[in-house]
């Protein structure tokens, strides 16, 4: 198959409304007439972010974007552009936006087609260690633009207008945060980039920094200018050595080119950035704990107010945002708050990066517009569940989030709708679970994590998570008691209400959401001592089937001598002696031992 040409049709909701489906069949028809079906590939893409000019077609090579295409234009585009190799100037639109740069290279792959990339605009496109590469894609233009054309308060207004909300998980409106810091009267202020990414299975921030460190630095400079800060900190875990190395190089390069330091690009604005390494405590992702850690104290949260915007690092007003939030800023400045606002849902604007992992075909890092359904992420981008297994649950938000069952798959992604169904947006971990996953065990796994990471300052979190974990462990070991579910629920709600910081307030979420959506599995574990996913090993029994050839391998490994049988004849397990360790199951080479 010759891969010379491809035509991409925008399949976003606005373009669909403007008859992009009819366009698709017209193009197919026209290609057939010219016998070009083998030479031109047709792709569908998710919203390309150019809704005002829809329906949109992109023809490659050449990457010509055609806007407001009607059915009558199809023949002309194919005859002129593809056959005569002359783009149709009348319909072509010039775009020099920052978002979706990946589309030139990856737009013909289904995995990328449904995405809209703002934060990850340069990831996988440019050399992250070259400031020249970043400059060539309009790097530092947003900073230069605000320094030339905008007053600090205008920048705050622009961010407010964009509707951007904190991407660290809680979703606090970023513009309001900027405004609160900007209005403080203090000659010394700070900005912080929170890169303390700690959720199991999440790697959005690491990839953003490793793929495009300058965009975070530029975002911070703009933030510093807007709120009147002179210094920024990037708080990043020491366990991300490559990200740190690239940040260090990026900061040094930016200083050498005059984008950081004294009197940036000849203006009156001076700003510097310092990297602070975290030792990997989960609680340090919480802003007040992070601030303590930067100051050199033990990473523990404190009650708010006063909020960091009033009293932050070294008791100075501090603006603290997540990596992803910062990386959005240059796009909002250059492509405009109006455009940014047009992406997403009513209350959640823009895009969100997710780390897609677990039982899914295409694991990876994705960025999708808010408002896309969970189903679309799992099946269109993720490619569905491998090995013909059945979907069971989607875990979002890591140890602070919850598990959603199949019935919630048509939920549109935004902060409110995810919270409504019992999970959270979180920082962007997304783990797909299939029928082989035990929901009680998964809740236990996340609680083990938070119990471990609890800083111990407040009792509800320190003691509460421990007690909850004890109950869960008991249930998975077949020692669950009547009333355990009620105890878990009561304890969970109490921890949510009484804990000092976000870690404790959200720690019971995995348990409470699985109790809500998968209650029957808990009941089976407790009453019937059964684990339907066959994960909780002490609840399983083993049985030898007809396939047994009498090799004695299982008999040899059984630690309690529960297996009887002579060579070359069917073996039998004495269930009263079996301790359910599973050693025989591992040892059998003939698939003769079954879990029951």
């Amino acid at each position: 198959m010759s891969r010379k040409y491809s035509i991409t049709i925008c399949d976003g909701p606005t373009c669909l409304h403007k008859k992009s489906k009819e366009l698709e069949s017209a193009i197919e028809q026209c290609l057939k007439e010219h016998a070009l079906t083998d030479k031109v590939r047709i792709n569908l893409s998710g919203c390309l972010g150019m809704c005002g000019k829809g329906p949109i077609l992109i023809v490659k090579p050449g990457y010509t974007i055609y806007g407001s295409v009607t059915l009558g234009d199809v023949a002309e585009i194919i005859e002129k552009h593809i056959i005569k190799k002359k783009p149709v100037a009348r319909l072509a639109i010039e775009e020099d936006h920052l978002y979706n740069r990946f589309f030139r290279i990856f737009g013909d792959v289904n995995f990328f087609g449904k995405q809209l990339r703002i934060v990850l605009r340069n990831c996988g496109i440019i050399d992250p260690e070259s400031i020249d590469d970043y400059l060539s894609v309009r790097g530092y233009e947003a900073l230069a633009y605000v320094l030339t054309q905008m007053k600090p308060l205008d920048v705050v207004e622009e961010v407010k207008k964009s509707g951007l909300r904190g991407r660290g998980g809680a979703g606090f409106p970023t513009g309001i945060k900027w405004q609160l810091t900007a209005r403080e009267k203090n000659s010394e202020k700070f900005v912080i980039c929170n890169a303390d990414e700690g959720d199991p299975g999440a790697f959005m921030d690491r990839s953003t920094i490793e793929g495009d460190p300058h965009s975070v630095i530029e975002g911070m400079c703009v933030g510093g200018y807007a709120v009147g800060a002179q210094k920024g900190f990037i708080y990043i875990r020491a366990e991300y050595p490559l990200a740190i190395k690239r940040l260090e190089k990026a900061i040094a390069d930016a200083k050498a080119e005059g984008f950081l330091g004294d009197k940036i690009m000849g203006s009156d604005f001076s700003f510097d950035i310092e990297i602070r390494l975290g030792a990997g405590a989960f609680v340090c992702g919480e802003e007040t704990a992070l601030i303590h850690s930067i100051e050199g104290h033990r990473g523990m949260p404190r009650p708010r107010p006063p909020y960091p915007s009033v009293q932050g690092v070294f008791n100075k007003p501090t603006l603290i945002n997540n990596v992803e939030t910062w990386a959005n800023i240059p796009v909002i400045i250059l492509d405009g708050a109006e455009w940014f606002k047009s992406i997403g849902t009513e209350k959640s604007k823009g895009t969100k990066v997710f780390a897609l992992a677990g039982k899914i075909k295409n694991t990876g890092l994705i960025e999708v517009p808010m408002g896309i359904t969970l189903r679309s992420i799992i099946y269109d981008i993720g490619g569905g569940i491998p090995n013909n297994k059945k979907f069971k649950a989607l875990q979002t938000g890591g140890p602070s989030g919850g598990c959603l069952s199949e019935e919630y798959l048509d939920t549109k992604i935004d902060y409110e709708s995810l919270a409504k169904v019992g999970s959270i947006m979180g920082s962007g971990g997304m783990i797909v679970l299939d029928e082989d996953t035990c929901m009680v065990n998964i809740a236990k796994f996340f609680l083990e994590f938070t119990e471990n990471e609890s800083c111990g300052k407040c009792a509800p979190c320190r003691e509460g998570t421990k007690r909850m974990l004890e109950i869960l462990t008991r249930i998975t070991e077949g020692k669950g008691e009547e009333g355990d579910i009620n105890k878990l629920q009561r304890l969970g709600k109490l921890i949510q209400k009484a804990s000092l910081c976000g870690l404790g307030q959200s720690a019971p979420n995995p348990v409470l959401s699985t109790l809500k959506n998968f209650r029957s599995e808990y009941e089976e574990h407790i009453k019937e001592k059964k684990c339907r996913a066959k994960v909780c090993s002490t609840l399983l029994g083993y049985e030898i089937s007809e396939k047994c050839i009498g090799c004695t391998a299982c008999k040899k490994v059984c630690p309690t001598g529960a297996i009887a049988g002579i060579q070359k004849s069917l073996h039998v397990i004495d269930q009263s002696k079996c301790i359910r360790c599973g050693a025989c199951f591992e040892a059998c080479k003939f698939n003769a031992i079954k879990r029951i």
Partner: protein
Amino acid sequence: MLTPLETVKKKRAEAINRIVGKGYLSTKRVYVGMATCEIAAGSKDVMEVFQTAIKNGLTDVYLSQKGCAGRCNLEPTVEVIEEGLVPVKYGRVTRDMAHQIIERHLKKGEIIEEWVIR
């Protein structure tokens, strides 16, 4: 004196000149994924194959690294971009495959279809 906006535009022009000076306008541009995830999957080996080939006289190729594009299960990835053609993306590239990409794709212009990411 230049305004910041004029400064950045001037710097951009200089940067583009430097990139072109490094051979950006070569017939083929090769990008190897070099984020933590890609390196863990073995992309350093792949990068080395291309670097060695260039050292040993492979010409008309612009080699660069890039961050993670998001295809975790298909890493290491390599893109070959040629003006006027749809970019080609290879997944799960090994040392051996990198040698073949050089011999077949870069030298002879053959797209190795079975390794292409769709």
